[in-house]
């Protein structure tokens, strides 16, 4: 079939994602800061502020504590781009999930490699965040398979109804952990995007200049990818469904900004417990129903 995942389509998808995702992600981050400022009664920075930030970081001197940190962060960025390429070229959703997790692990290892106590606290918190969201993200991929009959993202375009009609509890569960993945309060334990202060600066404490610029770009690309996953729930056998998916993704992101501005950060225990309970209830029950319902009828 035309949507069979081949190396070539992933390559083209990755290149397209590497060009478009930073642009879209940058604008999204700028919009995020603007809307956040308006919610706080401020004017806020220009729309292109995230772009200025990254350009400035690229101008800064290189003071890396070791040469491996930058390499790990580069790997994290590259694997994020590949995960996006797999997803947006219509490839395997499960593979996209795994590759973006690998990217997350590289990011954690980068922080650990500096041996800074503050970066290590950030890395530990990031590890907890991965532990918290990963079960629900895997349930999301499995539920998509059960609803669509394939892990291939392009397979959604062959459906008569979007998967959300069958796996809406999974969507709700996924939206819960999306707050962690987008690094939004109350779940921004390891590194917050705003001017919040934490234990120095969490997982990015030792990252500066060019390395920090890569982290920013990676975060933009991740946001686009995760919103893509959200939109996938609303794709079915008509091209117009892409528009529906984009609108849903925009509404979801606005909701995340609202949550970010209205909730104080929680402790890691609350993060882990709530994320797992939600994954078990929303994901587990939904998948169990899908698995056993055919036998009951």
């Amino acid at each position, binding site marked *: 079939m035309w949507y069979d995942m081949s190396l070539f389509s992933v390559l083209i998808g990755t290149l397209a994602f590497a060009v478009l995702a930073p642009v879209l992600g940058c604008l999204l981050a700028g919009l995020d800061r603007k809307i956040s400022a308006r919610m706080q009664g*401020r004017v806020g*920075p220009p729309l292109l502020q995230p772009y200025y930030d990254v350009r400035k970081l690229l101008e800064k001197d290189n003071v890396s504590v070791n040469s491996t940190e930058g390499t790990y962060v580069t790997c994290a960025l590259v694997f994020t781009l590949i995960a996006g390429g797999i997803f947006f070229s219509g490839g395997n959703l499960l593979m996209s999930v795994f590759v973006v997790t690998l990217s997350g692990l590289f990011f954690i290892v980068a922080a650990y490699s500096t041996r800074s106590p503050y970066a290590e606290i950030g890395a530990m918190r990031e590890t907890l965040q991965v532990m918290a969201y990963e079960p629900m993200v895997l349930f999301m991929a499995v539920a998509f398979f059960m609803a669509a009959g394939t892990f291939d993202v392009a397979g959604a375009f062959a459906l008569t109804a979007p998967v959300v009609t069958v796996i809406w509890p999974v969507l709700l569960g996924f939206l819960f952990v999306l707050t962690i993945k987008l690094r939004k309060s109350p779940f921004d334990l390891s590194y917050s995007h705003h001017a919040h202060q934490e234990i120095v600066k969490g997982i990015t404490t030792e990252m500066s200049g060019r390395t920090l610029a890569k982290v920013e770009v990676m975060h933009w690309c991740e946001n686009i990818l995760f919103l893509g996953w959200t939109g996938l729930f609303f794709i079915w056998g008509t091209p117009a469904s892409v528009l529906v998916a984009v609108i849903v993704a925009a509404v979801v992101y606005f909701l995340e900004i609202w949550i970010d501005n209205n909730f104080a950060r929680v402790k890691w225990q609350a993060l882990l417990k709530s994320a797992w309970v939600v994954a078990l209830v929303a994901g587990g029950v939904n998948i169990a129903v899908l698995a056993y319902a055919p036998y009951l009828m």
Partner: protein
Amino acid sequence: MTYATKSPWVIHYDGSSCNGCDIEVLAALCPGYDVERFGIINTGNPKHADIFLVTGSVNEQNIKVVQEIYNQMVEPKVVVACGICACSGGIFHDCYNVIGGVDQAIPVDVYAPGCAVRPEAIIDAVVQALGILEEKSKALQAQRKGA
């Protein structure tokens, strides 16, 4: 052109001030003055900061801390002394443990006197500091090209 002036991230350290100037520094970030309009972000990490705002005088206890923060900041960087204590030691200048203004510990680029320093004066000082930051950024780029 350099982007250093479009995204100045600041780090704030309270040497031994009475907190008057610190409150004014933070007031500049609040909705009334909203310095994020200019891309200014208050960061707690010296490695992410471009502008070092110091309040209060330098004494025997904190001189090492001030120097440590300054040394950890990545070039190009500028220092703004906020308030008269940070400029010269202020009314504490002849205390037995006070060394003097921040310039006794690290090179200071802009002095913003006042007791307490007004948020307008801080913003004005930061704008002046941006001019110096741009020059330093250009010098660094020229040095890189030459190297």
